[in-house]
Structures are given as structure tokens and as C-alpha cells.
């Protein structure tokens, strides 16, 4: 954008109205320009992956109903997976796991997805840096770099990753996915970046069970931090020292 020229040669007393308006316009433009430029190229600071935040989930296993699949359906609709019709050969970003305690016989059920670890083994093993962790803790696959070696699938302790075995069409614009690459739960990063919550959490609230909570683990005042402070919760496979961002209470 071309700024109007400032005329510094004229002494202030000799300035006429036109010059005054011109200089005023220039000052106004100079003041506004950074803001406009910021909006055009820099964007809203909150929309970027903020290293000060760490997104996580808290799942209350008590509230999760055995026969409810709302989170799974919501995720597959939101992100466009699961319609290939391959049963267990198809991709699954989130799944319901039914548990039965071997010692007591108590039955429960919970959703499992990528745990968005702080020390993700999938990121460690990826040869091309396609599997990476964003500054705000969300672990993603950069499918531009993924060569489809499946080493991250071998390395994930939670079986969170899926391989796309065939051509995909009609992908969702916010969730590109294609043959020969690996994918997993993105914590609905396209929603989170605009201030929203993941589709699974929304769907769970909508059913009334409210078993899933989403929030910023680094913010002591967020609902999730307060819940983690007050109620006991566990991370799955804690012994591996991965510090996942997804925690389960009442397991």
C-alpha cells in the first residue's frame, strides 16, 4: 500500500489546510497501517498455536455410557472418515473401548483417541518430521511430508494412528486426508484455532452425559484445570512417561 508522501520541507507555520489534511491523513494511515497489516498478514494472535496454552481433555469414565457412540459419530461426520466401509480395516480417529475389570468384574466404557502426549513417541520416530507437536500441545501429521512408512503406528502405545489404504474423495475442506498417509485425531484443530471445542466433546455434552471436558491445561482458572485439581485422574500407560494431554477420571 502506497503511503501519501510526507512533505518535511515546509515549515509548520507555512502549512496550509491541504498540507495539514495530507499530514493528518498520513499520520492516520501510519497509525492504522500496522493494525491493518497485522490483520491481513499476522492474523489474530489467539488464532495461532499459542505456546502458552496446552490443550487437553478430561474424560469421566463414570459418565460414559456403554452403548453411546455420539463422540465417534460426531468425529467421523466432522472429519469425514469411516464412510469407506471397511470395518476394522478402516480408519478410526476415536473409538469406544469397553472394559471389564479382571479382579472385580466391574464394566465400564470410555472413548480413546490420540492422547496428544507431551513426549510423543510418534514424533520421535517419524523419519521426516511429518508427525509433529504444535506449540500448544496438539500432535498432528503433516501429510505433505508423510511418506507412509507407518513407523509412528508401530510406536504409538495407544494405537491412535490409522493408515489410509485407498483413494479418498470428497474430503472435508478442514480435514484433508489421502491415500498412503497416516492420520489420527487432530483434537479438531480447525475448531480450536477459531475458539471452538472438538466435535466429540460437543456431541457428548449434547447427549447430556457430559463425560468429556476440553480446555487449556496450562490455565489454572480453566474448568479442566480445576477439575484436575479437585478430582483424581490418571493418564493411560503412565509408566511410559509420555505425559498425555488426555486424562481419565474414575477409571
Amino acid at each position, binding site marked *: 500500500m502506497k503511503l501519501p508522501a510526507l512533505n518535511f520541507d515546509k515549515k509548520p507555520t507555512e502549512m496550509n489546510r491541504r498540507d495539514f489534511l495530507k499530514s493528518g491523513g498520513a499520520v492516520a494511515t501510519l497509525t492504522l497501517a500496522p493494525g491493518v497489516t497485522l*490483520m*491481513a*498478514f*499476522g*492474523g*489474530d494472535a489467539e*488464532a*495461532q*498455536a499459542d505456546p502458552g496454552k496446552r490443550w487437553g481433555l478430561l474424560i469421566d469414565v463414570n459418565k460414559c455410557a456403554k452403548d453411546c457412540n455420539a463422540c465417534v459419530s460426531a468425529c467421523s461426520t466432522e472429519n469425514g472418515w469411516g464412510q469407506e466401509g471397511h470395518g476394522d480395516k478402516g480408519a478410526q480417529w476415536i473409538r469406544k473401548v469397553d472394559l471389564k475389570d479382571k479382579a472385580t468384574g466391574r464394566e465400564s466404557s470410555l472413548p480413546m483417541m490420540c492422547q496428544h502426549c507431551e513426549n510423543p513417541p510418534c514424533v520421535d520416530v517419524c523419519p521426516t518430521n511429518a508427525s*509433529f507437536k*504444535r*506449540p*500448544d500441545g496438539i500432535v*498432528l501429521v*503433516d*501429510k*505433505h511430508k508423510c511418506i507412509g512408512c507407518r513407523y509412528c503406528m508401530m510406536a504409538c502405545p495407544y494405537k491412535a494412528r490409522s493408515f489410509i489404504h485407498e*483413494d*479418498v*474423495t*470428497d*474430503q*472435508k*475442506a*478442514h480435514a*484433508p*486426508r*489421502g*491415500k*498412503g*498417509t497416516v492420520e489420527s485425531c487432530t483434537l479438531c*484443530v480447525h475448531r480450536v*484455532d*477459531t475458539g471452538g471445542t472438538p466435535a466429540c466433546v460437543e456431541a457428548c455434552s449434547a447427549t447430556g452425559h457430559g463425560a468429556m471436558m476440553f480446555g487449556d491445561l496450562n490455565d489454572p482458572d480453566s474448568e479442566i484445570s480445576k477439575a484436575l485439581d479437585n478430582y483424581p485422574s490418571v493418564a493411560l500407560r503412565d509408566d511410559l512417561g509420555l505425559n498425555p494431554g488426555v486424562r481419565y477420571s474414575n477409571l
Partner: protein
Amino acid sequence: MKRLLVSLMFLVGLAALPALAGGPVIPKASGAPHAEGNEYWRINHMQLLKHDRDETMRLGDRDIQASLKECVTCHAVNGDDAEPVSTASDKHFCRTCHDYVAVKIDCFSCHNSKPETPKQALMRPDTPDSNEIAAYLKEAAE
């Protein structure tokens, strides 16, 4: 030896024939034209796409110039059923040029080549390009 050379040159000449047809017919887009001009975008679109995709992917910055989603929305081309075509059809905007220069497009193995909300894209049939208009005028003048 001479015959070999002549036949080789003939074959090379054949390869140049498509250029005589005058280049690819690129469909017009909807929406505001690019500020930098078409030539700039023709030459630099891959650089811009790659840079901006890394910004979005790695840093979560979604306010970018070269958003593939916006590209396919403005550059949607309608097929016979008045719906935008995907890269399966050779009428697709990207394919009209990429087919001509024989550069394979990798983007659309993962990205959707149709706009997600087609009703927002301007539904415009293929506009005749300057060659066709000139030919028509020439005919009309006769």
C-alpha cells in the same frame, strides 16, 4: 545419417505442435482478482502455497494469503450438472493448465478439489476466451 537427423527433427517439430494451438484455455474465476496479477500467481503459486501451508500446519496461522480452500472456491468451474467439478474432470481449473504443462498435481490426493459450500461460489458457466470472441467477430464481419 542425414535421414536419421531429418526424421529426429521432424519428431521434435511434432512435439511443438500443441504450442501452435495457443496455450491452455483457462476458465475465468469468480471473486476479486489477485492484487499482484495473474502472471505473478502463475509463476509463484506453489511457493506461496507451500509457505502458507507450513504456517497453517505448524503454527496454526489460518489468516493466510494462499489458502487452498479459498483457491478452489473462487476458481470453481461448473460441469454439465451446474455443480463444481473435481480434478477427475479435465475442466477443473488447475487441470486446464497442469495438463498442458504435464505437471502432476499432488494436492488433491488429500485436499478436496471442490469448494465445500458450492452455493457460495459464483455459479458461472465457462466464459468464452478472447480467441473465441475474435473468431466470432471475424465471422460476423464476413
